[in-house]
């Protein structure tokens, strides 16, 4: 009970903090818009390079949904660093607050934000003519996959934040990871357009797994098939693989986070 109510109260605290910082809201809401519009416009002719008749906006939506989740996930860690530095964490620890709820409240607020951002992207994409061939269930699968992805990756930034206690370091590592991980995945380009060595990297890149599942929900096409709409529908093996990878990363990063957090709170 304490875990649930403490998590809820701390979740509300984070949401209030976001809502009351207009600059933060501006960036977290406009970031997805900029990603979607900029990338799909910049590479609008790119579809033809991937294959005849490929609509790049449809192709890239899955990648942008994920890229957004990826960069949002890295903000969890910096928030926790702020609480350590200000002494607010110490103040909470002197109360009977459920220890795990301190982390969980933060993660919940991150997931909530990522889901809102994803919905914005999907609405905007709909205006650009992108909608899941798999219907409402497809929307739900996209959102659920992004939420799970955000949860597992926020663990990395939390663990880094707790370990280094430096927001700069978390940002630095996030920036360092973003480009290689994102560009060497199927987020913005199909493997067929990559050099051989990069195809291998992409095939093992955890981002590719999640992107493929989301793209399958949007286009209804199997992995590697670049058309915008197929009648094949859900490719359950792709989706299950994605969840397997997400779960594996989640167990590793959240495990590390819990371990580091215990060390701080004991």
């Amino acid at each position, binding site marked *: 009970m304490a875990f649930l109510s*403490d998590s809820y109260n701390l979740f509300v605290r984070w949401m209030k903090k976001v809502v009351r910082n207009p600059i933060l809201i501006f960036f977290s809401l406009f970031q997805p818009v900029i990603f979607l519009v900029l990338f799909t416009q910049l590479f609008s002719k790119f579809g033809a390079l991937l294959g005849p008749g490929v609509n790049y906006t449809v192709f890239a939506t899955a990648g942008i949904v994920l890229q957004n989740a990826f960069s949002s996930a890295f903000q969890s860690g910096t928030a926790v660093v702020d609480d350590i530095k200000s*002494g607010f964490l110490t103040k909470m620890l002197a109360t009977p607050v459920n220890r795990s709820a301190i982390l969980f409240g933060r993660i919940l607020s991150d997931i909530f934000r990522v889901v809102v951002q994803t919905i914005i992207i999907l609405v905007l994409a709909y205006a650009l003519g992108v909608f899941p061939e798999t219907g409402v269930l497809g929307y739900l699968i996209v959102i659920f996959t992004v939420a799970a992805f955000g949860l597992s990756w926020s663990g990395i930034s939390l663990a880094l934040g707790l370990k280094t206690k430096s927001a700069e370091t978390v940002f630095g590592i996030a920036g360092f990871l973003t480009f290689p991980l994102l560009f060497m995945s199927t987020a913005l380009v199909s493997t067929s357009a990559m050099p051989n060595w990069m195809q291998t990297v992409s095939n093992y890149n955890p981002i590719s797994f999640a992107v493929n599942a989301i793209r399958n929900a949007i286009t209804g096409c199997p992995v590697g098939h670049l058309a915008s709409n197929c009648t094949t529908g859900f490719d359950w093996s792709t989706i299950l693989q994605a969840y397997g990878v997400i779960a594996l990363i989640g167990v590793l990063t959240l495990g590390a986070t819990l371990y580091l957090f215990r060390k701080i709170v004991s």
Partner: protein
Amino acid sequence: MTGIIDVSQLVKTYGDGTKAVKGISFSVPEGEFFGFLGPNGAGKSTTIKILTTLLRKTSGSASVAGLDVESDAAKIRKIIGVQNQDTTVDEDLTGRENMLLQGELQQMHGQALRDRVDELLKVVDLVDAADKRAGFYSGGMKKRLDLATTLVHNPKILFLDEPTTGLDPQSRASIWAYLKQLNEQGITIFITTQYLEEVDRLCRRLAIVDLGEIVAQGTPSELKQEIGADSISLGLESSTMNTGGTREKAKQVLETKFDQISDIVNSDIGLTVYAKNGSFLVPEIVRAFDEAGIKLSSITVSSPTLDDVFLKHTGKRIRVEEVTSANYRSMFSRRRR
């Protein structure tokens, strides 16, 4: 021991080998207003952190309300209020929201919590600002809010680590007034501070720690009586005081000529001498120094204060106020991190 706080042979050695607390023992009875004093780095904050379950001890025992600080940590957290050295209110939340959140984390809910928060807002005089964000509060208001957040759950014991440092005299006075009220309602108060006049007025008992050990404890009047003498503060010429050997020379003169002097301690401005009937001694000291060719820049006599007690036991002055040109340099080096 049967105090509400019992500490016995408490030791804390940090990972890097620093011995912050070296086997201290003390006991605080229920309802006490207890001052825990010492220079910076003496081990005060470490001790508070152990007592408030925020830090693990290395050895020894410590209990709060009969509960062991490690095995019963969860129970202790429900009955203590803790104010840290840094003011820790969430500046994006309003004063009221800060208090409601602390109450929720203490498992208080609904109308009972809201009533309690209203009541406390009145006590700390923040009713008008209750629904403004704490980020807009002045330093004194934030401290008052911080104090109020530690009181939401009606704690039996309040641990305060320098609750008034950095505040203007007026805000400080109002915080001490609240603390006095709380203590009169039966809350035990355990406080560290640098303001000795307030300690003298409000604390019923105190302990002085230095270098991780307790060097003195008792009631303020006991400790002052222990000095048993007036203090005569002698200001020496700062240019030759240390390097020119003036201080040593002055000490020699005092030691050989005055057998009624009970103690001589180095101070920031020169020497502090303890003797009965200090005022009668002044002309004689002036004469003796004149003969020995030692220049005096000032001489003041006072009945002993806690400051003298502190100086006697730690060799340092604690004051942060009353900056004079002679001691301002040492004052800066003593500022908190």
